[in-house]
């Protein structure tokens, strides 16, 4: 499916992922983690479909289990002792649960990052960097231009050398190493030579004149402003909740939750809205599209 969150302004995307990932790292409250993890999973499946589902099940689930099992072997705190290990150390219920929790946290962050990588294209990152350090956006763009170009060039050289029997895949180790160095040396000379032409092309188009601006294809629309406002409110609510200790859970020596109050359910709902925001925005988009009647 086509994601609509991606089409928002880079600042919106960035603020969102920054907040969600930071929260995911610091909130070890099981309920909050479940919210965040389910949001991340659903969104990653919306973005990547079956591939994400497979990734989550095949890689994330087993690594979570492994991490959960490893923790109690090294962590012996906690009151509820289940049995003693061979070396005499206790094996506690609390440490098992803490293992599961910390593993979930790591998985959660990884899945959020996978969504982040899908949404934050190089253009967007460049734009954000460009706001902070203007020269960096051009450098970044040039790096992204030249890395694939040089990769292709190395391939060309390697193929040409293969034709005359001098590739890294031919001969013994010493010869391979020598051929590899030769390819590298050709690559450097060729690239230096061609960069003169690149420099000419930049000069010809006025690079180096005073007052260079940085153009971007992004425009802050009303929609972006509304979403950013909403984001700010939700983030503020959740942060305040966290500061007042509502999301804190004590694992050792005994698991203790803070009691549920009206205020804490507010924070809870805010966090839910925050984690599910891209999903809700997509649903909202879908509804608007249906209403417009275009898809008849």
């Amino acid at each position, binding site marked *: 499916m086509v994601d609509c969150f991606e089409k928002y302004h880079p600042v919106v995307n960035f603020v969102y992922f920054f907040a969600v990932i930071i929260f995911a790292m610091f909130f070890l409250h099981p309920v909050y983690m479940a919210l965040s993890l389910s949001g991340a999973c659903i969104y990653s499946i919306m973005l990547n479909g079956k591939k994400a589902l497979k990734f989550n099940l095949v890689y994330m689930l087993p690594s979570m289990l492994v991490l959960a099992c490893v923790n109690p072997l090294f962590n012996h705190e906690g009151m509820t002792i289940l049995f003693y290990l061979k070396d005499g150390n206790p094996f506690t219920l609390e440490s098992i649960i803490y293992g599961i929790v910390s593993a979930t946290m790591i998985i959660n962050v990884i899945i959020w990052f996978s969504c982040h990588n899908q949404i934050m294209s*190089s253009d967007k990152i460049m734009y954000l960097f460009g706001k902070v350090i203007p020269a960096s956006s051009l450098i970044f763009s040039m790096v992204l231009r030249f890395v694939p170009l040089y990769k292709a060039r190395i391939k060309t050289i390697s*193929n040409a050398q*293969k*034709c005359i029997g001098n590739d890294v895949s031919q001969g013994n180790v010493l010869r391979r190493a020598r051929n590899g160095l030769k390819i590298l040396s050709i690559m450097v000379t060729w690239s230096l030579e061609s960069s003169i032409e690149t420099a000419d*092309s930049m000069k010809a*188009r*006025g690079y180096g004149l005073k007052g*260079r601006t940085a153009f971007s*294809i992004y425009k802050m629309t009303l929609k972006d402003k509304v979403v950013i406002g909403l984001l700010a409110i939700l983030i503020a609510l959740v942060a305040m909740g966290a500061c007042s200790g509502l999301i804190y859970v004590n694992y050792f020596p005994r698991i203790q939750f803070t009691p549920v109050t009206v205020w804490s359910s507010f924070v809870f709902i805010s966090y839910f809205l925050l984690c599910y925001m891209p999903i809700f925005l997509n649903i909202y988009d879908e509804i608007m599209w249906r209403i417009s009647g275009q898809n008849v």
Partner: protein
Amino acid sequence: MALFELKDFSFKYPFGEDYALKRINLTIEKGEFITICGDSGSGKTTLMRQLKPVLAPHGEKEGELLYEERDINRLDLREQASKIGYVLQNPDNQIVTDKVWHELAFGLESLGYDAAEIRLKVGEMASFFGIQHWFHKKVIELSGGQKQLLNLASIMAMQPEVIILDEPTSQLDPVGAINFLDTIKKINRDLGITILIAEHRLEEILPMSDRVFVIDGGKLLIDATPTQAGRLLKEMNHPMFYAMPSSMQIVSHMVQDEYPLTIREGRQSIERYFKNKEIRVPRLEKSHKPASDKKAIEFKHVYFKYEKEGPDIISDLSFSVNEGEFYGLLGGNGTGKTTTLNLVGGMLKPHHGKINLAKKRIVTLPQNPQALFVKKTVLEDLRDIAKDKDAIDRVTKLTHMAYLLKAHPYDLSGGEQQRLALAKILLLEPQILLLDEPTKGMDAYFKRQLAQILRELTSKGVTILMVSHDIEFCAQYVDRCGMFFNGDLISEAPSNIFFSRNSFYTTSSNRMSRFVFENGVTIKDVITLWEKNKA
């Protein structure tokens, strides 16, 4: 008011012994379309770079060079950047950023426009060039022709008065090149922008040009309309005449004072001449005896694809090349020609069918000669392959490299680099030589030299398989041609028969004369036929 004016302009490189440009006088008016021709090393590039001071090499200058009646060096940098556009040869090296939209905006960013203005100008330009569909694409996804159009568009976005182009199509395939030249024509005709272009494809560019400058040895030899330039070159018996369009070369040889520029005019001339006349000799008899009947390369029902799920790039391909034969594979882009070459070279393996190779030593000449250069001088570079002094002597003689042995490989011109690469390859003493677009970016003179070298090799029994877009080269020098389409050979014949059978995919001489003669494929053929039917 003249756009550029040169008065007795001379230029000498810092350590040069002789002047690279000698007392040049010329004016370029606004809105003119001017073609500059001259062999490599004649001073074309030196002259054009002088017209854009930021790109001009250092050296001694004499005389005057005016832009809109002001000394060009007094032009401020901002004005110079936006008013004088310059397109270079290599499409890849000129691109600075990773995205099409960013590249289009690059010049405007330098000039300090704000986002709204840039958006407008870039949008306007993308629509004019019809490239709005690739606006969000990565540069790496574009073809060579598209990249060069992008370079042009990103200069056009700065709204220049004049665009100077230095052999912009030499790295492009024919379709991309013609598309590019048509765009240039459109810019000149619809926007009145002055064009100054150096080009090898005179066949396409001369009919568009108002004037032609012929540069020879740093001097402005001719400054005239294309027709007059043709006449003057012919009268001087200048080698540059052999770069003129085929129709001009043929018709001016036979008819007094006619210098047609296009195929259409050439065809009209020849048909006017033979109107109501009987054609006694409609075809030339040519022998097509193969040099040997032993097969050097043989493909039997070969299939190849890159991915298991992907389409067959080569399907049911069967053909053979004889020992000592020069075989040319022609066809459009992406039809599987280069893949076939890689199959012969052993870089790829077919998933069905059989490839029989009678000889062991097979080498490929890569498209980019730079991919082979390792050392500081030509001689050291050759020694890198073979130590044997006799072998090096033999090869340098064959490839006419002897006078260049001390030069740095990167200081050679395009044609010389190509020859050095060939020399290196030949030191491996190939029995089968594979060539991928060897004539790309070569001028007429270097092409003739290359053909001579290849002839000499085939006469020694070397088998040559070449992939090329260069129809004229194939028609003149290749023994047998095959037409590739959709992963298979759809037609194959000795080159004379091959081209006389085709009606579109054939030489300009043939397109011009096919309604009169049956097999006038090269300029020489048509002239011979015409002479036989003369009286």
